[in-house]
């Protein structure tokens, strides 16, 4: 579905690129997590995939169509979710904000907004303002906005980085539930290895400058559970595997 080929991005022509020859593909309805250390170019990658910035070289194709601007069926949940919510609009206003421009009627916007808010457990907070909600709730509003847009592919940039552990676990399960219920492909960036292994079918390990260092297939049972899954010996193995892959010396920079 999503095909990324030799993607390179250089912000400063004199310096090192932020992303170098990044290549991978994502299939229909896949849940792919991308891990990488801070500053390795994860956000840069997502911004290129979403057509917000043009790569220096390389191509992104979505369903065979080259991406040269924000594609129609894509939604992006930003790393800094609270700044992506507009404080002068209510929660419902924020969730429904992009919809009229997709051609939805007023009634359709209201229906889609209500459904998305219900899906994230905020059905009764539509009339609140984002700043009246807790951080975790705000994050759910940002997710609801993405759901209401009915994308076929969802890009998420460390969406749970700034919420507490319990909220984070709840949001992870919410996301898995949404992924199972809706016909949706998810590309999820995180630097939390547990989170990546818990959520994904496949984990891409990114190294700096952003390129795929290793692809780890997550062969855990499809049904995930915060306690049971994380106690499986296989979970521990996978997480160590990803961790060592992140840490291992890069053969490219080794002498000889």
């Amino acid at each position, binding site marked *: 579905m999503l095909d990324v080929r030799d993607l390179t991005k250089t912000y400063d022509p004199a310096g090192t690129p932020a992303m170098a020859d990044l290549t991978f593909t994502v299939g229909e309805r896949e849940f792919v997590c991308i891990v990488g250390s801070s500053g390795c170019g994860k956000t840069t990658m997502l911004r290129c995939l979403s057509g917000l910035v043009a790569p220096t070289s390389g191509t992104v194709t979505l369903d065979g169509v080259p991406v040269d601007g*924000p594609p129609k069926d*894509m939604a992006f949940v930003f790393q800094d979710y609270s700044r992506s919510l507009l404080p*002068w609009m209510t929660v419902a206003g924020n969730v429904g904000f*992009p919809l009229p421009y997709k051609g939805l009627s007023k009634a359709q916007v209201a229906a889609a907004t209500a459904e998305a808010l219900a899906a994230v457990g905020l059905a009764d907070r539509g009339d609140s303002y984002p*700043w009246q909600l*807790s951080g975790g709730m705000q994050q759910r509003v940002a997710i609801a906005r993405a759901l209401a847009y009915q994308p076929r592919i969802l890009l998420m940039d460390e969406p749970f980085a700034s919420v507490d552990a319990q909220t984070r676990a709840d949001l992870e399960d919410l996301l898995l539930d949404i992924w199972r219920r809706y016909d949706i492909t998810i590309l999820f960036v995180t630097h939390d290895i547990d989170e990546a292994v818990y959520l994904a079918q496949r984990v891409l390990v990114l190294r700096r400058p952003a390129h795929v260092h290793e692809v780890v297939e997550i062969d855990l049972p499809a049904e995930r559970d915060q306690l049971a899954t994380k106690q499986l010996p296989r979970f521990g193995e996978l997480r160590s595997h990803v961790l060592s892959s992140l840490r291992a010396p890069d053969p490219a920079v080794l002498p000889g």
Partner: protein
Amino acid sequence: MIRNRITDWALALVLPVLLLVAYDGWARTADDFFFPPLSEIGGTFADEWLFTRIPTDLLPSLVRMLAGFALAVLIGVALGTLLGFSRTLSTALDPVLQFLRALPPPALIPVSLLVFGAGDSAKVFLIALGAVWPVLLNTVDGVRGVDRTALDMARSYRVPAHARLTRLVLPAALPRIFAGARTALGIAIILMVVSELIGADNGVGYVVQLAQRGFDIPEMWAGTVLLGLLGFSANALFVAVERRVLHWHLAISGRATTGRASSAPRRRSRRTTPNPTEAAGARRP
């Protein structure tokens, strides 16, 4: 809560009442021709301004002031948005704008009388020209300060450019625009009076000046009091509108005073642009 508001009101009234009483007591004993007692000023005020001079002088003043103010806000926001978006344009226009801004508006009265004649347009022009700067400069700052993440969000959801402008950029800049407009309102009132001192045949400023020249001291004072009341109410009205329109901003920045926003403000001083004060008036666009 309600008790608090009543005591606040009472507290705010103490000083004005004391001042009036003190003035009246002093004026009665001093018996100075230039400082008549309150009763005399009040009497003239009632005779002249309630309501005989309202259609002939107050309304023309107000209409000119509001027209000039509206023009200033319109032009300031439109031009400010353009300059906020385009560095090229703002660099190109900067010298001209700095020059125009440096001109004291009263110095333009002779020119505007020549160009527009002695009618209303000269006065409206003067008011607009003086009041446009704080709106313009604050709009530029406000538009430049719009959060990048919010803009990226709108773009990634394919919100078209015109909707990004009206539903994102302008609302985000609104706190700054309001700060500028509030300063502009004060300037508009000052220039309303100034514009009526030369080449006018009606208006509150005209009446005050005429009274002063004719040594009709109570009338002069009555007009002066009216101008004070006018400025006071205009500002109060403005603040009331601001409180409605910007309730979200006041709640976030912790300045909500009346019980509009129910819950306490959380998080974030990041998005709220650096305290929108009139200070921007001192900066370059």
